[in-house]
């Protein structure tokens, strides 16, 4: 969105609420001064004034245009500053930028969503969009994993998802503990027994690069078509508008042509998982 002719312009945004999700992830409920309309999969740039800017894919419902939520893992300079924010603080917002999941194309098909760790954040927004079009697709499967139960994002919400009739949900952790009575193992181990027609279906993969790599190889081996596998790629997206050059991925800029790519668009490019 090019606000008043300046794509670098920041929209003043108030932090409404900060929720601690895991030891390293907090969710921020944000209220921009102007309505921001995004589609699931697109990202926004958030600024902590004086500290800088970083890209995040909203984890909230795209149709809720008054507020936006992002779940932020504390990994770097800007995210460390973000974790120090509290309700009432002011941040800057640009966007939305990049490509969204082609929801129209998902209609009438069987959908497998594969999430790993912090990848649950953008996927929550996608799942809300899919729930809103419930009945328009054949079946919906969510297979998610993370390292430990304490690192599982939206754990309470996941419980309620488990009770939905329009969703078949299964979660796994690499390493269990006394709070966990579910599956233990890598997410790739709980994909094969999904009861769907892989060659006709849609697979969506989002998570850390190493998980994306193996989950993509897995769904390919299962029979999903490269053009029906959607990946949310992570590169160093800075300007968000295809100019600053940092997030190049072959002939694409991740910020403008992605972050959602079909595997068929990028599978020939060198170093996509690096």
């Amino acid at each position, binding site marked *: 969105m090019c606000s008043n002719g300046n794509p670098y312009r920041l929209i003043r945004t108030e932090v409404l609420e900060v929720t601690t999700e895991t030891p390293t992830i907090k969710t921020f409920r944000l209220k921009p001064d102007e309505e921001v309309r995004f589609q699931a999969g697109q990202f926004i740039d958030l600024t902590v004034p004086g500290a800088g*800017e970083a890209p995040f894919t909203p984890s909230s419902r795209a149709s809720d245009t008054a507020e936006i939520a992002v779940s932020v893992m504390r990994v770097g300079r800007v995210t460390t500053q973000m974790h120090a924010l509290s309700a009432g603080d002011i941040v800057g917002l640009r966007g939305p930028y990049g490509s969204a999941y082609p929801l129209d194309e998902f209609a009438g098909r069987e959908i497998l969503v594969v999430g790993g760790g912090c990848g649950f954040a953008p996927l929550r927004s996608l799942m809300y969009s899919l729930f809103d079009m419930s009945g328009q697709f054949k079946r919906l499967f969510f297979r998610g994993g993370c390292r430990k139960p304490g690192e599982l994002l939206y754990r309470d919400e996941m419980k309620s998802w488990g009770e939905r009739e329009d969703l078949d949900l299964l979660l796994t952790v690499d390493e269990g503990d006394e709070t966990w009575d579910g599956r233990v193992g890598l997410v790739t181990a709980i994909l094969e027994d999904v009861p769907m027609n892989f060659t006709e279906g849609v697979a969506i993969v989002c998570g850390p690069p190493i998980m994306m790599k193996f989950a993509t190889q897995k769904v390919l081996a299962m029979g999903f078509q490269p053009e029906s596998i959607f990946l949310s790629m992570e590169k160093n997206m800075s300007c968000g508008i295809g100019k600053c050059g940092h997030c190049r991925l072959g002939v694409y800029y991740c910020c403008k042509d992605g972050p959602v790519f079909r595997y068929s668009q990028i599978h020939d490019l060198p170093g996509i998982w690096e």
Partner: protein
Amino acid sequence: MCYFFAEHGFGALLRAAAEKYDIFGPAQREGRGVYTRLSSNGATFDTGPVRTVDPLKAFFFKPRECVADGFSAVPPLSENPPLCVVGVKACDLKGFRIQDFVFAGDEFRDPFYSRARNETLIISSDCTSALDTCFCEAFDDRPYPRGDFDLNLSPVDGGYVVEVGSEKGAALIASCPDVAQEATQGQTETRDRQRDEVSARVRQNLKDYRVPRHDELAGRVERHYDSLIWKDEAATCVECGACNTICPTCHCFFLYDQKNVARMARFRAWDSCLMKGFARVAGGANPRRELSERLRNRFEKKFSFFPKVTGEYACTGCGRCISACPGKIDIRRVMKRLAEHV
């Protein structure tokens, strides 16, 4: 039709331009041209024989610029008068084909670049000589401007043959009716002969250094993706970024904030893809950890990415990076190695 301006007449033209524009042109320092603010009388003006040391892009995509001021919706555009840049050479004008694509070619038009492009008056000029490092002809470009100027100057005896490239240029000429003459056939023939001579000199450079032509580079970076070229060439790279800053087509930048929480301001500054952290993400993962990978990225952008997305090689053959590199990394040698069969 071409005009002829005698030297004193051209001085009058510059004085007319100075009423509206700040005028910059090449000043010779230690034998090399550097873009410098010219005094409006134009007395010491010289178009310069070859390209300047510094690239033209700095007037449009500035080395450092404030791009957002607080949460204001108004872009913090400069209030300085528009610029007129004189003596611009063809290789710098070619840079516009890449810079325009990046900054003015899509829905996210950059207001700072676009305004400078719209307002600046470009009075370009033919190269009257060639440096040993000049190789524009490898990309089928010529050492004289063929477009993207408002006026172009071809030095001939006693003055300049002037070609009009835009309405803005025509309007400036119209403001000096007393000094503009129609160029004679003899004068335009002199211009054409000089142009051919300089072109031939650049083509001789291609032969002397065995520089491949652009059509020998198609698909070659992909072919050589895992070759030893990159490690060999990176061996002397010191990651100074001079090749990036001096390049007319390099456009990468980083965004950073003024360290003043009470007064938020965002700046944009030239970046270099040779720097270790260029592609690193917040978690620490770095797709181009090795210097050789970053050097490859530079040439991949020039000889693969831009030809694929715009149909243009992002190299103007200006040779600035050859002169600037303390590690003596020579883009012509890289081209030569790319063109070799594997």
